[in-house]
């Protein structure tokens, strides 16, 4: 530790700390214009100058590290004069058009000019006169106000990795721009906007909307993906005006993606449902809540008494809060008497459950912010820049700052390869074979962590036995990856101090999720990359509360907290507490529910927030199934494709209109806080469940979300110490958190595994179906701009990407004589769609990619329910 005095105050800080941070610790504010704790110090602005006693001259505090015994002065007349001169130099070309500048009121330059009383300028020069960019989506660039601090350039490089903008020209002509000054065409994550200390880069949606002091800002959690970024939502007069990230809060530390920052428009969409709807003679009429709930209750009661509870089923979206999900399954199981409930098509949770089998907990093992400190990162079938952009930033930080090695295992040439040391381009679906091959190589080279394996795991013999079939030659043939590269990748991972495996899951992931997670778990156990910091496996859920849905028992076979439904004593525990009875036999999963519906066995289906027609594979069969249900209730923010088939539609609140908690991909329970009231008659899902239950004659729980969490914590040991008072902190709480004084668990299995030892569960690679006459492999998945079908209701996002497409590799395109943007027909066993081509090097030869978002022209029209690898035919129109 280093001790120094700053303005007479003594501080002790770790070596390597910059004077600026040490001063902050001493409570002394040094002005800065080019420093952010997210970035490497740069030293462009020189307003942070300080003086060291006994030394001549001034030095910038932001990039000078502390030394023992230093005596620093931060506020002498010399320093003030120097700062003033710096500001005057900036103001030579600066327009000072504060009244029309959106930064006004929160502009660092404005604040400093005011603080230092810079009222005149003895330096004379021309004012900058550059054209403002009004063309780029989401971002307005007024470079006249730019002070060339370089923070935008640096964050786009250091954190985002997009390198979209850089310094152009030299000297007086220097400016920030894109190549050839074209409009921006990047990820539109808006990180550059968020660091710009002045009004040069602005949020286009916030342009000329309000002053910062007009707005109420609410800290809440993003409602799109499983990263669980903290959003600061600025509202005024009942409307969202701006969303930003706050450097000091959340796992994202201010970083957001385009959906989180700019994708909120759907909240104010004119198509939001504002009153309950009841279908009469084939068309919807508005109804009151009493009428709608009355009808739902009457019909469900009829069905229950005529055909029993098992004729009722429910599908719920993992976008709901924990409290809502818990109450939903309580309503379905206890009050309506059915275990037929599921979420996200039943696809998304095979991977976490597999980890539960082998390790003990059905979740990621470590914390998201540890990824940036890892040495070797394997992105296993994870197109992170598209599915979880903020996790991609963690990877970028590891690669760029710590020279970590990124190993990409994917069947496409995904964008992430820009940062990878190894691009292991596998044949579709053969990732498991590759991991097995890596393990075999590790065993053969004696790189396994013998000590860890012998003391903390079991089943190594069976694993060794099964791995015998995975000689490098064979794996090379199975996966198409050269032996040299995956063996080298395996060596790297085995030798890493911190090795991380990232697996993203979702509705579009193949059924191989379980195998993939088990293979990953075997690999980490074999190399001892688990139970320590900066290592482990991450299962990245597709939706904001994918983890919570699993924790809250939104599956046919698991009660909240992974209590086994088949175990009478577990069931009794819930029955006693609820004073209800839960049916004994395990329910059906989402696909079986649809299957049963098709066969006429499901008379009542209650869908909350899901849109199976778009999100589930084999859309045409899903449609048939939904049409065969006697009584379909859909609860949603919009009249979705699914909702339009319903008999009753209940209007739900969006994530900014309710309170509750989400659990993100690193088991972090975080509080969602309302910034708005729901529009019209729309109500939070929790309220709807409670009203329904009340009308069915049972009080579900006390009305507030907080009370429901108190109920959850008594029944779910993992959440035992979680209550709202404790959640009111910038980072939430990570389960397992068993009691009120448990600090939460940043990484799992430090001392032991819940079952004592970690289990090796060998997985065999199964080859896909034999070649058919359809020559093309089809992969479907999410894109960066969209999430499910919800984001399609945000016009800004659809302007960026509004239609479906098929991604084709340039070589294939040349062979077929296809051009970019040409219409083609894709045909599979399940259906056909007509889409435009997008010729891109990110595809791989022989492989097509179609996004899964776009209803009637999305990938889900082509894929089958079993989600084995789909093959399609391609025809030109």
């Amino acid at each position, binding site marked *: 530790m280093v001790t120094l005095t700053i303005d007479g105050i003594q501080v002790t800080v770790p070596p390597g700390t910059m004077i600026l941070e040490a001063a902050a610790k001493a409570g002394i504010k040094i002005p800065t214009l080019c420093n952010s704790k997210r970035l490497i110090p740069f030293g462009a602005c020189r307003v942070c100058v300080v003086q060291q006693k006994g030394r001549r001259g001034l030095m910038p505090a932001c990039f000078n590290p502390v030394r023992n015994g230093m005596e620093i002065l931060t506020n002498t007349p010399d320093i003030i004069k120097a700062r003033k001169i710096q500001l005057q130099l900036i103001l030579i070309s600066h327009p000072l058009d*504060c*009244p*029309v500048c959106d930064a*006004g009121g929160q502009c660092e330059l404005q604040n400093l000019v005011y603080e230092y009383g810079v009222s005149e300028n003895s330096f004379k020069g021309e004012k900058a006169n550059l054209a*403002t960019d*009004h063309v780029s989506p989401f971002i307005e660039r007024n470079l006249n106000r730019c002070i060339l601090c370089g923070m935008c350039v640096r964050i786009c490089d250091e954190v985002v990795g997009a390198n979209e903008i850089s310094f152009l020209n030299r000297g007086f002509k220097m400016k920030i721009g894109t190549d050839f000054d074209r409009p921006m065409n990047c990820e539109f994550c808006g990180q550059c906007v968020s660091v710009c200390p002045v009004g040069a880069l602005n949020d286009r949606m916030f*342009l*000329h*909307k*309000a*002053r910062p*002091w*007009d707005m109420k800002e609410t800290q809440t959690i993003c409602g799109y993906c499983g990263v669980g970024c903290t959003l600061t939502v600025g509202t005024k007069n009942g409307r969202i005006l701006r969303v930003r990230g706050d450097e000091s809060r959340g796992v994202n530390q201010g970083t957001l993606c385009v959906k989180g920052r700019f994708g909120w428009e759907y909240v104010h969409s004119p198509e939001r449902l504002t009153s309950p709807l009841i279908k009469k003679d084939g068309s919807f009429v508005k109804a009151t809540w009493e009428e709608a709930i009355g009808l739902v209750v009457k019909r469900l009661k009829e069905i229950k008494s005529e055909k029993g509870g098992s004729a009722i089923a429910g599908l719920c979206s993992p976008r709901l809060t924990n409290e809502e999900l818990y109450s939903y399954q309580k309503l379905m199981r206890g009050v309506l008497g059915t275990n037929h409930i599921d979420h996200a098509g039943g696809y998304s949770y095979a991977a976490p459950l597999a980890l539960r089998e082998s390790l003990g907990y059905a979740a990621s093992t470590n914390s998201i912010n540890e990824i940036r400190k890892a040495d070797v990162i394997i992105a296993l079938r994870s197109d992170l820049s598209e599915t979880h952009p903020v996790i991609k930033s963690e990877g970028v930080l590891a690669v760029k700052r710590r020279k970590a090695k990124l190993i990409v295992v994917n069947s496409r040439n995904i964008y992430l390869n820009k940062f990878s040391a190894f691009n292991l381009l596998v044949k579709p679906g053969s990732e498991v074979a590759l991991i097995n091959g890596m393990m075999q190589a590790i065993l053969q080279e004696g790189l396994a962590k013998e000590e860890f394996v012998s003391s903390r795991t079991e089943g190594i013999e069976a694993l060794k036995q099964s791995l015998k079939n995975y000689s490098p030659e064979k794996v090379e043939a199975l996966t198409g990856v050269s032996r040299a590269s995956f063996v080298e990748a395996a060596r790297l991972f085995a030798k890493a101090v911190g090795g991380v495996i990232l697996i993203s899951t979702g509705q579009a992931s193949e059924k191989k999720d379980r195998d993939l997670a088990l293979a990953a778990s075997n690999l980490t156990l074999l190399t001892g990359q688990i139970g320590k910091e900066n290592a482990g496996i991450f299962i990245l859920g597709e939706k904001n509360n994918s983890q919570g849905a699993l924790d809250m028992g939104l599956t046919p076979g698991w009660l909240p907290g992974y209590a086994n439904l088949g175990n009478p004593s577990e069931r009794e525990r819930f029955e006693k507490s609820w004073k209800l009875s839960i049916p004994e036999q395990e329910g059906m999963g989402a696909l079986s529910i649809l299957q049963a519906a098709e066969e006429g066995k499901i008379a009542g289906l209650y869908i909350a927030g899901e849109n199976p027609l778009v999100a589930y594979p084999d859309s045409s069969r899903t449609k048939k199934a939904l049409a065969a249900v006697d009584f379909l209730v859909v609860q949603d923010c919009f009249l979705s494709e699914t909702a339009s088939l319903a008999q009753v539609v209940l209007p739900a609140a969006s994530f900014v209109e309710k309170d509750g908690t989400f659990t993100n991909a690193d088991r972090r329970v975080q509080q969602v806080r309302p910034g708005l009231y729901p529009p019209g008659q729309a109500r939070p899902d929790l309220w709807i469940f409670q009203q329904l239950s009340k009308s069915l004659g049972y009080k579900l729980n006390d009305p507030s979300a907080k009370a429901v969490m108190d109920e959850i914590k008594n029944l779910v040991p993992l959440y035992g110490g979680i209550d709202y008072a404790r959640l009111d902190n910038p980072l939430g709480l990570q389960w397992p958190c068993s009691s009120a004084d448990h600090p939460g668990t940043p990484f799992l299995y430090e001392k032991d595994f819940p079952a004592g030892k970690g289990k090796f569960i060998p997985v065999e690679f199964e080859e896909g179906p034999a070649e058919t006459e359809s020559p093309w492999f089809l992969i479907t998945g999410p894109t960066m701009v969209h999430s499910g079908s919800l984001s399609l209701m945000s016009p800004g996002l659809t302007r960026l990407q509004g239609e479906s497409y098929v991604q084709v590799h340039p070589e294939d395109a040349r062979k077929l004589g296809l051009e970019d943007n040409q219409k083609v027909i894709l045909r599979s066993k399940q259906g056909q769609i007509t889409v435009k081509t997008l010729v891109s090097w990110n595809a791989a030869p022989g492989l097509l990619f179609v996004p899964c978002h776009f209803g009637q022209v999305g990938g889900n029209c082509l894929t089958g329910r079993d989600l084995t690898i789909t093959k399609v035919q391609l025809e030109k129109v």
Partner: protein
Amino acid sequence: MIKPLLKGLGLTLRTFFTRPVTMQYPEEKMVMYPRFRGLHELTRDKEGKIICVACELCAAVCPANCIRVEPAEGPTHQRFPKVYEIDLLRCIFCGFCQEACPYEAIILRENYETANYTRKDLLYDRDKLFHAYQK
């Protein structure tokens, strides 16, 4: 006792021959000093366009909190006041808004005849303030 009475009568007599101060309002109207702070006007530039850029400084400084400004983006991406509202019932005519305005876009002028019948009539919106002194 008689003394104060005479003193009073003396004053009466003296003022009896001076010019009366009472004005026959509304037939006669007082001409205000140039720096009088009466009803506001949203001023115009040479082309007759509104000068205000909706910077909200007037609203921020107003001690009575009676100015509401809602900026918006105009067709040439300029900033303009979509809403500019002064609640005259609450305004204390301090003139701070005029002082805060960087463009002299709002000034308090000579008109003091703002009485009206309903509260709503005293909620002056942008157009009313813009045309407040137009004949």
